[in-house]
């Protein structure tokens, strides 16, 4: 179920529902049964008390005229329940006139009137005492209370018994019901397990409301992952295609050298082949730079970078290339203008900007870099006097492999996209505009403090 070991599986919806439902039902049922039994017992108590009083009154009414001493001195037990009942009739309250077979010789209850709970023969009894109308005979009728308790117990038992059948039945219902309700989850899981890793289409089909949010989030994630992968795939494909052109140039120039009629033509073609090789190399380097930038690790571990000093270093590196085209380099601004970022990445950014400026500038012009503090921001600007980029094309110029019309196509089309990516990683605003006097290109980067 969980071979990766990343998830810690705790609890089970099914078991939990089972426990809660069965426990709850049993608890409520038992409580209801207990209350019912208690109420039944109280009701019964009253009923039996009334019966006892009635029996005593009946006996008291009959005593005197109808009692045949000889016959009634020992009354036979007529019913098994009779064993649980007993009575005594006392003449004047102290002479035992008549009693049931199992009645003791002493008074059942010390009271002359009303109910009393007493113990004899090792059992608990409820006794009712009553004088007849002429106050000659005291009638005492008793009933063993254990019979009452047994009755209440039986009622309770009858109430609880169905639980023994109902609980397992309910358990089965819950078990299969929950299983059925979780089927969609299982179905989605199986569908995901069967999926080809490259198949990232959203999950479709019916899902219960409770699971829908989870599936929706998962679908959103799938869409994002698919977009990222598509982006990567397109980049790889674009990169491979972009390499074909300098390679074709390399091969073609070499074949031209091969077929050249004279040494001059051959040398010229070989020099161009070497230039094509350099182009391919530069393209590969820039592709690698871009690929490295895709690692999100750059988002962390920012340090304080002195942008001014970094710009000075980048210009020093570019000095030789600039001298070849007779381009003058300049740096303006404040020493110590620092930003939070990555020195390596910012150096790549500066190198690309200066490289681009030199590449597109005509000879005998200038390339200017300025690093200034502007309120809480640091503003970096790189300006050239080249052909610039028409306003309509500026946005597209930041995309990968975009090359400008009319430009001597020696760039890889990656320089500005690398700059854009590094700016993005630093949360810096990037803008292209024309340079001073509307000439050339000015690239501005605003680094928030």
């Amino acid at each position: 179920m969980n071979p990766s070991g990343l998830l810690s599986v705790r609890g089970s919806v099914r078991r939990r529902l089972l426990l809660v439902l069965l426990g709850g039902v049993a608890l409520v049922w038992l409580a209801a049964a207990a209350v019912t039994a208690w109420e039944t017992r109280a009701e019964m108590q009253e009923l039996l008390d009334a019966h006892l009083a009635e029996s005593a009154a009946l006996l008291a009414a009959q005593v005197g005229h109808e009692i045949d001493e000889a016959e009634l001195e020992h009354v036979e037990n007529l019913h098994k329940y009779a064993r649980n009942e007993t009575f005594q009739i006392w003449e004047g309250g102290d002479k035992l006139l008549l009693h049931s077979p199992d009645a003791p010789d002493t008074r059942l209850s010390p009271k002359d009137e009303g109910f009393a709970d007493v113990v004899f023969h090792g059992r608990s009894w409820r006794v009712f005492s009553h004088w007849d109308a002429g106050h000659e005979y005291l009638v005492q009728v008793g009933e063993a209370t254990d019979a009452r308790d047994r009755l209440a117990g039986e009622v309770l038992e009858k109430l609880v018994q169905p639980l023994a059948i109902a609980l397992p039945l309910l358990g089965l219902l819950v078990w299969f019901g929950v299983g059925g309700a979780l089927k969609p989850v299982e179905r989605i899981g199986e569908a995901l397990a069967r999926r080809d890793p490259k198949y990232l289409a959203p999950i479709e089909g019916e899902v219960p409301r409770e699971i829908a949010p989870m599936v929706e989030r998962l679908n959103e994630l799938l869409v994002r992952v698919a977009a990222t992968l598509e982006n990567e795939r397109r980049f790889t494909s674009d990169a491979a295609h972009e390499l074909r052109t300098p390679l074709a140039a390399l091969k073609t120039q070499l074949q031209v050298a091969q077929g050249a009629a004279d040494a001059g033509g051959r040398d010229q073609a070989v020099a161009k082949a070497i230039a094509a090789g350099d182009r391919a190399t530069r393209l590969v380097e820039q592709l690698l730079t871009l690929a490295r930038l895709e690692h999100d690790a750059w988002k962390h571990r920012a340090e304080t970078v002195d942008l001014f000093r970094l710009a000075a270093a980048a210009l020093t590196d570019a000095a030789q290339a600039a001298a070849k085209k007779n381009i003058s380099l300049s740096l303006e601004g404040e020493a110590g203008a620092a930003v939070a970022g990555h020195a390596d990445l910012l150096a790549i950014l500066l190198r690309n900007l200066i490289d681009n400026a030199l590449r597109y500038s005509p000879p005998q012009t200038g390339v200017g870099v300025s690093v200034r503090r502007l309120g809480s921001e640091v503003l970096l600007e790189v300006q050239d006097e080249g052909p610039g980029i028409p306003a309509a094309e500026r946005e597209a110029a930041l995309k990968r492999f975009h090359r400008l019309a009319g430009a001597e196509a020696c760039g890889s089309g990656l320089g500005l996209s690398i700059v854009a990516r590094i700016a993005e990683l630093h949360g810096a605003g990037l803008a292209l505009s024309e340079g001073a006097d509307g000439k050339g290109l000015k690239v501005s980067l605003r680094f928030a403090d």
Partner: protein
Amino acid sequence: MRILVVEDDALLGDGIQAGLKQRGFGVDWVKDGVAAQHAIESEPYAAVVLDLGLPRRDGLDVLKALRQQKHPVPVLILTARDTVEDRITGLDAGADDYLVKPFDLGELSARLRALIRRAGGQASPVIAVGALSLDPAARTVSYRGEARTLSAREFDLLQVFMNNAGRVLSREQLASALYAWGEEIESNAIDVHLHHLRRKLSPDIVQTLRGVGYLMPREVA
């Protein structure tokens, strides 16, 4: 044979131009789609080598526009896009052939020769007009069964005549079919080359129609 190369990459375009010239073609080179369209509309190219990812106007758009105008020039697409879908799209847009970068210069020129030959209505790689036969690939000519040696220009001029046998060609037509832009043309260059051709082959292979132009009869004796 004059070819137009449309390629925005400086080193590759330069290489193709130089390589095709070495193989006997006259080559013009433009770097964007708009310039390509103007060139094709104004010059009689024997074939066009067309890159697809071009600035200003995409190569496929240029091609579609040409075919919409019923322009018959043979077009060979030369591109980095190598999937079957890309090839199908290119050929369906009106291309006659498709070559993927990087390529071999020898293959490119062979394919161009085949395109030009088919456009001239000839199935055989060797062009024959009467007793004359010309092999564009080997750049050899034979007349009445005998091999004749011609200079590059003479060969090209003969090929233009043979491709257009039975048709009158003006001096300007001949010049623009032979020379790329920027090539210096002496005012009497065509006459000089024609004079050499007549001397090396036969005075009757091409007739001069004063004030109109030149004609190679369909049956050269």
